[in-house]
């Protein structure tokens, strides 16, 4: 399944860097509009261009940056911004843990550099591919750096344009990331058990949202969902 991704998104005879850049293309298509939205909000929150881009460079986490721009705009104290960011981004702990077994052969420094640029989207892309085969470091880093640069570029565009164009909806650009998650989720699914876990995790996240635990919903639903996966796996193993 990951092979079909690799084939449609890259050419066999190109260099690893080009392959990585092409592989990142769907992420780029999502990051430029969402980065744009963040740039617009940051500009309207009266952050400077430097602060706006610095956040995209060193924080590099889409949803939490959008939330932070809103918190800056409403003049929230620093501690509340930090706490919200921490909770919203804690899900990366699980992603980093899930990806770590694949990188056991990499030197520590390379692993850490890789993890610095681990986002929801690059995680989904890599975990799909790593399940088949871990490509060379150059290709992997090309994916990460291309994605990161497109995020910074989108933020810059949004900041510059924040007084000109504020609505990306007529172009459907706001749907780039949901559509990408749809594809990445479907590509991850290898057997019926995974369908069950996807449906359960999704339903749990929806439930937590409805109950008002929005900030914790992804974390809680993931932990419960993966645990149910283990239960399901052990149970079906006993059956056979």
């Amino acid at each position: 399944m990951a092979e079909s991704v690799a084939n449609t998104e890259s050419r066999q005879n190109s260099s690893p860097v080009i392959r990585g850049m092409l592989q990142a293309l769907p992420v780029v298509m999502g990051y430029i509009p969402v980065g744009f939205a963040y740039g617009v909000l940051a500009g309207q929150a009266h952050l400077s261009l430097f602060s706006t881009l610095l956040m995209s460079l060193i924080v590099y986490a889409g949803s939490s940056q959008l939330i932070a721009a809103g918190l800056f705009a409403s003049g929230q104290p620093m501690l509340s911004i930090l706490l919200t960011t921490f909770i919203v981004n804690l899900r990366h702990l699980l992603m980093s843990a899930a990806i770590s077994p694949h990188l056991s052969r990499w030197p520590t420094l390379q692993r850490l550099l890789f993890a610095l640029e681990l986002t929801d989207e690059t995680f989904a892309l890599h975990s799909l591919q790593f399940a088949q085969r871990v490509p060379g470091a150059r290709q992997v880093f090309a994916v990460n750096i291309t994605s990161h640069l497109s995020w910074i570029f989108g933020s810059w565009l949004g900041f510059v344009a924040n007084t000109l164009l504020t609505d990306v909806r007529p172009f459907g650009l706001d749907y780039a990331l949901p559509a990408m998650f749809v594809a990445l989720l479907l590509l991850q699914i290898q057997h019926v058990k995974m369908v069950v876990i996807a449906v359960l995790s999704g339903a749990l996240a929806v439930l937590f949202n409805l109950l008002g635990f929005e900030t914790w919903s992804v974390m809680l639903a993931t932990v419960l969902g993966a645990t149910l996966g283990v239960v399901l796996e052990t149970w079906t193993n006993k059956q056979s």
Partner: protein
Amino acid sequence: MDKQTILMTIVGMALVTLIPRLLPVWLLAGRTLPPLVVTWLRYVPVAVLAAMLAPSLVVRVEHLDFSWSNLYFWVSLPTIAVAWKTRSLFVTVVTGMGTLALIRLLLGE
């Protein structure tokens, strides 16, 4: 907020974001994990993607919304079908965005 506090806040945000990203890759890689943990980790991608996606499609202002006005949900159906058929990330993203833009155009939004 003054300039310095803003900068300190952004650096703080980077720290609280990067530490959870770095710790597992730093501490877990190279170790042999118990089989149960490995199985658990194999389910994380599916679980986390579904958990991020589902609420964005069906929840609006803390309510389930399957009305016609919730385009995010309805557009997800052809998007899912195309993702299933083509297995291409690129085609799926273009389909999703294009369908949504088209419907908004037709509805005059």
